[in-house]
């Protein structure tokens, strides 16, 4: 250290100590601030998710209430009127045959409606025969309308989803995607491919609907997208999707087995 006095060395080391201390303190302060920011962002996202979940629940409840009121309720009212009519017939000499036939028909349609509502709430095929059969039934139901063509491809290996909650959530996610494609995208063709490796199950979804600006949707997700995300979170899966106006939608859902 020739040319530098001891005083200067002393000063330089002092400055070095000061700079190192200040830098360490600044780093700690910066890190602590960014952690707090991250935490508040996470809390905000959780709050939003909770809000959307409650909204989705309420929407589902109002749909069930509407179905019960408009469908089952009105049919029970008609049944009640027929019973009143039968009472009157019983005290008179009129033939009850026509009234009984009409009553039987209404009771049958009420049973049908009850079955439809309960099937929508929890598909029995899913419970009894598993995800693959339930999805086939769902797709056949949509394809049967003649409006939509769904190409469902499930290899035998991918049928090994044993957990009922996982199977139900996958079913609901695909149901949501198909409903969105019909309602918002006006899609005519949908393709769903399952693939199964030792580590993960991958589901690829494609439709030829109107598409949307995925960047916009990413910032401001609707109820359906939030529903898909919260269901995926519940079963430990993740997804990526891409879409642009006029080009339909492509999504990839990955479920890790371990």
């Amino acid at each position, binding site marked *: 250290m020739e040319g530098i006095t*001891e005083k200067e*060395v*002393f000063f330089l*080391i*002092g400055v*070095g*100590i000061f700079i*190192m*201390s200040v*830098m*360490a*303190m600044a*780093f*700690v302060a910066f*890190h*602590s601030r*960014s*952690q707090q920011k*991250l935490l508040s962002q*996470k809390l905000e996202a959780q709050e939003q998710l909770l809000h959307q979940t409650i909204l989705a629940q309420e929407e589902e409840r109002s749909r069930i209430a509407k179905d019960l009121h408009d469908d089952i309720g009105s049919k029970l009212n008609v049944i009640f009127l027929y019973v009143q009519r039968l009472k009157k017939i019983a005290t008179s000499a009129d033939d009850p045959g026509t009234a009984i036939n009409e009553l039987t028909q209404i009771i049958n349609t009420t049973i049908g409606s009850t079955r439809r509502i309960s099937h929508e709430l929890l598909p029995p095929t899913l419970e009894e025969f598993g995800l693959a059969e339930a999805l086939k039934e769902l797709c056949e139901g949509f394809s049967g309308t003649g409006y939509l063509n769904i190409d469902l491809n499930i290899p035998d290996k991918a049928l090994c989803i044993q957990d009922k909650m996982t199977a139900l959530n996958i079913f609901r996610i695909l149901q949501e995607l198909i409903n969105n494609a019909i309602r918002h995208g006006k899609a005519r063709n949908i393709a769903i491919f399952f693939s199964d490796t030792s580590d993960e199950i991958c589901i690829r979804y494609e439709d030829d609907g109107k598409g949307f600006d995925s960047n916009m949707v990413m910032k401001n997700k609707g109820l359906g997208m939030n529903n898909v995300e919260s269901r995926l979170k519940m079963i430990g899966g993740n997804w990526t999707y891409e879409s642009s106006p006029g080009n339909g939608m492509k999504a990839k859902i990955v479920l890790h087995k371990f």
Partner: protein
Amino acid sequence: MLQEIGLLCRNLVFICLFASILLLFFNRKRLPDTFRYLGYYLCWNLAIEITARILSDYETNNLPLLHLYTIGEFLLFALLYRKVHLFKKWPDKKFWIFVCIVLLFVILNSIFIQNIYTFNSYAKTVVQLILMGFAFGYFYQLHEKEQDTEALNWVNAAVLIYYSGSLFIFMFGNYFLDKVPETHLIFWIINVFLNLIFQVLILTAIWKGSRKRKFFS
């Protein structure tokens, strides 16, 4: 005057260290398991501090203690950071090889390179840089994966601030002793002051940790 400030800070360090050990001992069941290694480190620190004071009172060179202290300091902090999964990508064998290499260097440095009656500046600098690396690694890990580690963040902040600030003090310790002994006092005071910050942050960490666990229990 300067010496009095230094002695006051040193006494405060001693009080904080003692308080931390007591607080940790009485809250040992409520604190996370990671704090066990912090407890061992604080006990090691206290034992060295007491011995250094006794030797200092008898006007005996207490620098050999620094050589000894460096070994425990590195080993216990390495175990602490291992406990917070800093080395999760390293298999056990790799971790222990790394620890053994560093400890071997510290020991060989004290035996063959730097006299035990001088600062072990080479070994101490290497250990301090490694501990700073651990602290940065821990902060980086927090960004990657969120954890509930408020109390450990205080420990990490203490490690980063103390070891960054005192890096040059130990690096040039022998230079101060040989060339400019009169400046040694000033740097000793700066080190004691940084050590006081370190101990206050550690005490805060233990206090925060024990309070949080009470809330959940």
